């Protein structure tokens, strides 16, 4: 056991959660040493080890979480919240050892309120299981990330995730009504359960996007909706990214309220759409979808079709749209998804309509221009749309990564540097929904500029001993 986890700490934790719920077997340490971030996976793939937690703790109630944090605070032990471990940014990695607080025992649905249309649940509930329970009543939580089957409710919120239908229903953070959070000193705070309010600052938002660096979310109330009467999906083919982007922009600024607009660039159309859906197409493949009342959705779709036609799109009809919907998550299952031993990263960004196309071309040029000679490819699709802009879900991919893990890591980080600095230089934000974690921690100062010290001082006030998830989201100070 690492020096910072004395027998006294273990005893204190055991007294809170019970002996069955404190673990430190080598196999557990291995399993909790890797999440969905490429970097630790690559090290393990090559037979090496990554930092492991000293202890894994499984609290069974919010009160137990708070008491665990009090013990850790007293002992100045790092605490890393762990939901499903599906985060792609290394946010749940125990890079400094310490405690992993696995939230999966907090898995109860506390209330489904069909009059006020919300669900109140503990934060460790699995997203897929929560959705099944809602679907059984004809309801849905309209946050459909590809990782819904593996992520937890807390994990949806902590990195401010987005799902497939966020274009209509909003990001996870737009669907949350209130939170209960355990803080480092052992306090539990709860924000008001109201649709919205104007009573001073909305301190709930401090815990959205801070990825466990401010506290552990123990409970959340989420806005739900009825399963729609109809869902209309259709596929279009545009000659290039520019015309597709313009079509999407017009749909959004005309407030046609699409459920989804997803446009694959010509390279992804040729590669991914072909591999997963089996269609051989040239150009930019776009899915558009509308849901809700049948007559309203049909009218919205008609207007969208007129926009697409005016821009010269080929209407591929319903079948390829519906096929995409039915298989939309297949893109993320092995062997379809990007996987080792390749070197890859999802370098997504978000910006306004007047800049997003430029960012796409600039990143493509920067990555292929700088690393093309090594075989690095660039692909992207536009996934989440707003009436003001869109998010570019782009990736780099190198099939034959350098054999030595040190070299692979160095190249990976270099490509990331290029991608992020290009996004920032052209008015993009680091990302739209994957969060920061460990991977992008080093860019936070540059991104926030003069505002960064303000964020640091908020962190100091909430977590004065810096026990919460050190080394993530730009907060580098160690427990002291």
């Amino acid at each position, binding site marked *: 056991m690492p020096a910072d986890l004395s027998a006294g700490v273990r005893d204190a934790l055991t007294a809170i959660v019970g002996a069955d719920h404190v673990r430190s077997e080598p*196999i*557990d340490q291995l*399993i909790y040493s890797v999440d969905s971030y490429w970097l630790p996976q690559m090290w393990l793939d090559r037979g090496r080890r990554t930092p492991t937690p000293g202890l894994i703790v499984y609290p069974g109630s919010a009160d137990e979480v708070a008491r665990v944090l009090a013990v850790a605070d007293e002992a100045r032990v790092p605490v890393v919240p*762990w939901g499903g*471990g599906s985060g792609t940014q290394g946010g749940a990695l125990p890079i400094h050892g310490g405690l992993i607080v696995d939230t999966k025992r907090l*898995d109860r649905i506390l209330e489904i309120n069909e009059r006020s249309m919300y669900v109140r649940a503990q934060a460790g509930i699995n997203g897929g299981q929560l959705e099944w329970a809602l679907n059984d009543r004809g309801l849905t939580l309209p946050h459909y990330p590809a990782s819904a089957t*593996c992520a937890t409710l807390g994990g949806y919120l902590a990195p401010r995730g987005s799902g497939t239908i966020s274009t209509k229903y909003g990001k996870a953070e737009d669907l949350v009504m209130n939170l209960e959070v355990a803080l480092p000193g052992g306090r539990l705070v709860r924000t008001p359960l109201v649709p919205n309010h104007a009573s001073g600052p909305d301190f709930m938002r401090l815990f959205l996007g801070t990825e466990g660096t401010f506290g552990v979310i123990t409970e959340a109330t989420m806005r739900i909706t009825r399963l729609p009467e109809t869902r209309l999906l259709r596929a279009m083919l545009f000659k290039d990214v520019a015309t597709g982007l313009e079509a999407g922009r017009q749909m959004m600024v005309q407030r046609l309220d699409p459920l989804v607009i997803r446009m694959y660039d010509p390279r992804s159309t040729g590669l991914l759409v072909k591999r997963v*859906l089996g269609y051989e197409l040239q150009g930019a493949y776009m899915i558009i979808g509308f849901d809700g009342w049948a007559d309203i959705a049909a009218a919205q779709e008609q207007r969208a079709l007129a926009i697409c036609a005016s821009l010269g799109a080929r209407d591929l009809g319903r079948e390829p749209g519906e096929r995409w919907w039915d298989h939309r998550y297949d893109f993320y299952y092995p*062997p*379809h998804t990007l996987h080792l031993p390749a070197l890859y990263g999802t370098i997504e960004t978000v910006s306004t309509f007047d800049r997003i196309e430029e960012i796409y071309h600039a990143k493509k040029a920067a990555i292929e221009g700088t690393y093309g000679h090594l075989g690095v490819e660039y692909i992207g699709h536009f996934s989440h749309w707003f009436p003001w802009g869109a998010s570019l879900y782009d990736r780099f991919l190198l099939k034959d990564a350098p054999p030595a893990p040190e070299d692979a890591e160095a190249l990976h980080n270099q490509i990331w540097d290029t991608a992020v600095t290009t996004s920032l230089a052209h008015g993009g934000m680091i990302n739209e929904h994957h969060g920061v974690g460990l991977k992008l921690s080093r860019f936070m100062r540059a991104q926030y500029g003069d505002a960064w010290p303000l964020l640091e001082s908020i962190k100091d006030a909430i977590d004065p001993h810096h026990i919460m998830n050190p080394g993530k989201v730009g907060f580098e100070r160690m427990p002291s």
Partner: protein
Amino acid sequence: MSAPAAPEAGAVPTTENCRFCWMCRHACPVGHVTHRETYTPHAWALEIESVRRGQIVWDASTVSVLYACADCGLCRAHCATDQPLPDAIVAERAAITAAGAAPAAVYDVERRLRRHVESGAAARSSNGPRRASSTVGLFVGDISDAARARAVESTIALLAAAGVPVTEVGADRPTGRTAASLGLRDVAVDLARAVIDDVQSAGIDELLVLAPGDRWAFESVYADRLGLEWPKGVRVTDAIVVLARALAAGALSFGAPKDLPPYAYHDPCHTPRLARDYAAPRALAAAALGPDAARPFFWREHRAHPCGAIGGLNVTHPDIAARLAAARVDDARAAGARWIVTEDPACSAHLAAHASGGVEVQNLFELLHERLVTSSRPTSGR
């Protein structure tokens, strides 16, 4: 536009694919009741791959973890690319078992099943197939288990009432699927061969089974895990489906339910990994217990969690087997049910042993038999 092509075949081993994929964990029953990341599909795959890479070794702790998988098939059933992860886990167990490194309880099972193979062979040579000489067989299985013996008797009576006389096949023979799950490949092969011999010598063209687990053994385990061929021309059918058809055709009827408590129907272990008529057992339960008394389980149909009597968990991880059963009982209670009904005798027996808090367990075949109105006309059932 060209026609959709088949997705590319995965050329890499399953565990390579699964080790860093989290996508089916929502369906995994063991992960669900233990809450431990180490007991989830990706973790078992990562464990196997980490041993291959020399990062850990098979020792008592890591082997115990590998044996915590229930071999329920839910991960594969919910995998978009149909990765046979349970087969990969079981293949690794077979290597561990052959190396003498499995948990002691596994070798106890091996000894017990070996005795079964030998005594079963003696019984068969003296008894042969029993009862009606029909081209429809009923797989009897290991009736040294009293719960199974009762369910078999009830099923034969129900089938007879439905106008489906059956030849009894495979009396006293375990299918070998639990042995296969535990990595006891040799004994599983011997048990399976004995069943296949019985089926071949029975002169049947259809074999009815009591539970999905038996059908899975015959349709998949024998070929995919044991490399054995199922007798050509013998199709395997769930007995419950035959009875439901008879009910629909008016060839079976049950006494009018009176004062029976609300019940939940439990889809037996292995259900999600098979194509299955979910409506058939439900229709029978509704006929016997009243259409309005059904209270659906949350973990049902394609997401049905096992009861715990599966994959040898009872011997390797009785704590997890018990927790799975307790979760089913809690699930029923939360749905407002006071009875759990299910046709698989192993499930009903295991659930009954863990029933609590006012929830009781009934075997569906036995219940149907009890409530059967015997004046039904035979012959029109199929």
